[in-house]
């Protein structure tokens, strides 16, 4: 039973994390290759506060705020660059983040932070809490998608210049997407820190950024259910099939490539296509 609880908690955190990236890359069309940095910023904030004696729940809000604030700064920077330049800039932010964290003794340097206090919610309570947050954010995403805000995001993802010429303040919308997406990633990071109770710079590096991007893309960029499903599935796949663990990264790589090569719309695109055929 404990095993299943761990599994479900991992799933819920991954879903929240992937949906937060989907808000930026899927909704707003801004590809980010450094999203794990914000996950990490939240994780470190939450872990440090918890070590200092703050109760778990009170660490999540600062985790989100710190990540969101950094996200907003990156967002401002991202306004100056586009497409491929943006992808590489965000990748740079990711490397900068772990490069900085590694050298800070306050943050535990290379060794990271261990013995993060328990949440006090119990295993089942924590699982339910994580699932609740994931569900809440998924609900928010669905709401946004249907609102005029979602309509505007579709248009920005389609063509920024055209959106601007029909009077949409594109920069403002982009900044909001960055702020929300990175803040939620920070909260997910806070959950992660309290789930594994040990964090180190390597948990938030480029591989993690690509992994979460893989979830978004395999699910179908922009599709809330597709992304949630892919995140849940891909996050537990290696845990489920222990023998696969050795091939986990190969599988991720191959899956990413195959998805782009044969179905750039991801699972959601695949489902839509199959429906169209039948």
């Amino acid at each position, binding site marked *: 039973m404990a095993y299943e609880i761990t599994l479900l908690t991992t799933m819920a955190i991954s879903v929240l994390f992937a949906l937060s990236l989907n808000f930026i890359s899927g909704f707003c069309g801004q590809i980010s290759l450094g999203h794990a940095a914000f996950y990490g910023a939240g994780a470190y904030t939450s872990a440090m506060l918890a070590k200092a004696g703050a109760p778990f729940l009170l660490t999540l809000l600062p985790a989100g705020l710190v990540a969101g604030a950094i996200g907003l700064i990156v967002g401002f920077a991202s306004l100056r660059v586009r497409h491929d330049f943006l992808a590489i800039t965000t990748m740079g932010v990711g490397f900068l983040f772990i490069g900085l964290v590694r050298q800070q003794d306050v943050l535990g340097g290379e060794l990271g932070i261990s013995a993060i206090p328990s949440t006090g919610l119990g295993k089942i309570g924590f699982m339910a809490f994580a699932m609740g947050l994931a569900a809440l954010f998924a609900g928010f995403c669905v709401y946004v998608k249907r609102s005029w*805000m979602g309509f505007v995001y579709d248009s920005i993802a389609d063509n920024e210049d055209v959106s601007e010429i029909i009077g949409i303040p594109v920069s403002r919308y982009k900044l909001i997407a960055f702020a929300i997406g990175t803040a939620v990633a920070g909260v997910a990071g806070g959950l992660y820190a309290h789930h594994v109770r040990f964090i180190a710079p390597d948990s938030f590096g480029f591989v993690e950024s690509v992994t979460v991007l893989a979830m978004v893309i395999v699910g179908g960029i922009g599709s809330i259910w597709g992304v949630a499903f892919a995140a849940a599935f891909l996050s537990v796949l290696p845990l489920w099939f222990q023998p696969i663990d050795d091939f986990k990264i190969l599988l991720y790589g191959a899956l990413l490539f195959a998805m782009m090569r044969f179905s750039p719309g991801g699972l959601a695109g695949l489902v839509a296509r199959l429906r169209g055929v039948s």
Partner: protein
Amino acid sequence: MSTLLDIQNVTVRFGGVTAVEDVSLRIGERELLGFIGPNGAGKTTLMRVITGMVRPQAGAVVFKGTDISTWPIHKRIRGGLALAQQIVQPLHAFTLLENVVLSAGGAKTGNPITALLSNARDDERAVALELLERTGIGAAADRYPGELPLGFLKRLEVSRALALKPDLLLLDEPLAGLNQAEAESLADLIAKLAAGGQAIMLIEHNIREVTRICPTLYVQDNGRALAHGPADEVMADPAVRRAYLGLEEAC
């Protein structure tokens, strides 16, 4: 007639090339101004200066009495300008109707918080449908831009600009790519809008339609103002005939 848009001594250079040189031009409220000139005269560039897509090296753009030279594009659009571009740029993920609906939703899209709290699209849909009917592409409302020929997309550009309910409508060659019947009917619509009080600046190569509907013409050549005045006088101006018609008699 009071001045709506006042372009003051605008100069634009791209690298070493001067695209627009010291151009000044006024457009009054309710005016329909035809803007002609040979290819490369800097017409589209001047249009882009007005909307803020190009920042001039010198000069100012004053709109409704306010200097908007430093405003970003979206703010100028919200301030009452609208542009139908020469090279069509539909949003490909949207149907024609959705393209226009989004444009008609200016009151909701201007502020992200309002946008987040707004859901209903019925009013905008009604406005958009009506506009698509007026531009003659209502039958294709639910089709996607990728499936439609250029003539439809040119009219989509116009519909989308109209949906912004602008004080000044900027049309950059809206008739190009339409057949004669389509061009005539769109020109009729432009004339009707103008008769209803809509101020319009119309860049067009189709001289026949421009002279038919525009009471006033402005001619630009090599980035410089060549003539500006009542259509018949301008067309009789020898300088205009030499620079423009001499080259393109066939029009």
